[in-house]
Structure formats: C-alpha cells, structure tokens
C-alpha cells in the first residue's frame, strides 16, 4: 500500500525531475531488535518509482560490518545518501539519517536527496566561505522527533 497520496507522489515526481545527478540511498538495517526498520524500508521504497535517478541498496549492519564502518553507521535503521561527482564517480554526501524518516523527517530526507541530486544548497556565499575553511573533521548530530 502506498504511503504517499497520488498528489504527494506527483509533487515529488516533479521535484525529482529537476535532479541532474543520480542518488543512491544506502539503507542500513538489521533483522532483530529493530522495530522501525520495516517502516523505514517502506518509506524508502516510495521514492525510486518516482524517479529513475533514485536507487536503494540495503546493508545489514550485523552481517556487513565493513560497509557499516565505512559509512560510520552502527545503528539501524539508518540511511546514508550517496551521490556522484562531475566525473560520474560515487561521492558520499556524508548526510545520514538515524531512525525512520517519518513525519517532518521525510521532508528533510527529500530535501537531502534533491541537494545531493544537484540542487543549490541555499547556503549564502558567506556561509560557503566559512565552511570551505574547515580543515578538520566535524561531526554534527541534529536531534529531532517525529511530528
């Protein structure tokens, strides 16, 4: 059963049509002790039918520890968004979602997909310049709740 209404699907289809580059969603899951893994997969499955530029790959955090470590994800459900650079090579966006992207988080996920797919970020020139100067690792965790 579709989670999105036909109207929402159409809006998303139009938004995704603007994407210049393909986006791969890495879905980190586990079989046991993960109440929201199934929900997350259902939410993610809504996206590829709306754009041929969006694909999903499933990674089991228990069975594929190497990949989980590579993307620095040790929990499930989680999503890592991977894009492509100008040369067509895969480029990790380093944008991650921990927990089911339900409610407002779904909108954040869509925004992140559009950004990685080539949309302008909305950062001002000043922000961009300040961020460009960062030469040490920064890890940001934004906590939200489903609303």
């Amino acid at each position, binding site marked *: 059963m579709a989670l999105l209404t036909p109207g929402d699907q159409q809006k998303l289809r139009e938004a995704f049509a603007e994407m210049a580059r393909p986006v791969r969603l890495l879905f980190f899951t586990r079989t046991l002790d993960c109440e929201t893994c199934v929900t997350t997969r259902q939410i993610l499955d809504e996206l590829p039918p709306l754009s041929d530029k969006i694909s999903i790959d499933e990674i089991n955090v228990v069975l594929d520890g190497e990949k989980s470590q590579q993307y620095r994800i040790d929990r499930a459900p989680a999503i890592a968004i991977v894009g492509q650079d100008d040369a067509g090579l895969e480029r990790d966006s380093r944008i991650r979602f921990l927990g089911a992207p339900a409610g407002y988080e779904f909108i954040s996920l869509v925004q992140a997909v559009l950004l990685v797919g080539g949309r302008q970020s909305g950062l001002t020139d000043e922000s961009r310049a300040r961020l460009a100067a960062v030469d040490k690792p920064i890890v940001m*965790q934004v906590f939200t709740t489903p609303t």
Partner: protein
Amino acid sequence: MAFANPNITAYAVEATEFPDLARRYQITGVPKTIVNEEIEILGALPQDAFVEQALIQFTNNNSQLTK
C-alpha cells in the same frame, strides 16, 4: 553543510528511537544539534548564526594556533 565540505558529516537523529543517544546528549527539546560531542545548539537558528555556532570550536582552535 556536510555537502559543502568533505570534512563535515551530518546526522539527523530521531531522538525517540535512540533514547541512549538522547540521554547521552541530554536532549530535552528539539531540534538540538551536537557538534563534535561538545557544542550544543538549541533550536533552529538563522543560517549565519547556526554556521557561526557550529564552527565556533574550530574558530577557537584556529585562533589558539595562531597566537
């Protein structure tokens, strides 16, 4: 921000699904942003203020280095 610089990684964390993380970072209201385990940013700030806060540790470290 993560997209703007390869040194930056951003996680959106659903607090109710990961109560251990919510406890560790004392999440009593959302949105709350934790930068490098230390800096806390409460609420949604205008972009320039948010970038300022998020990079404050970095800016301080740099100024210490140049002293």
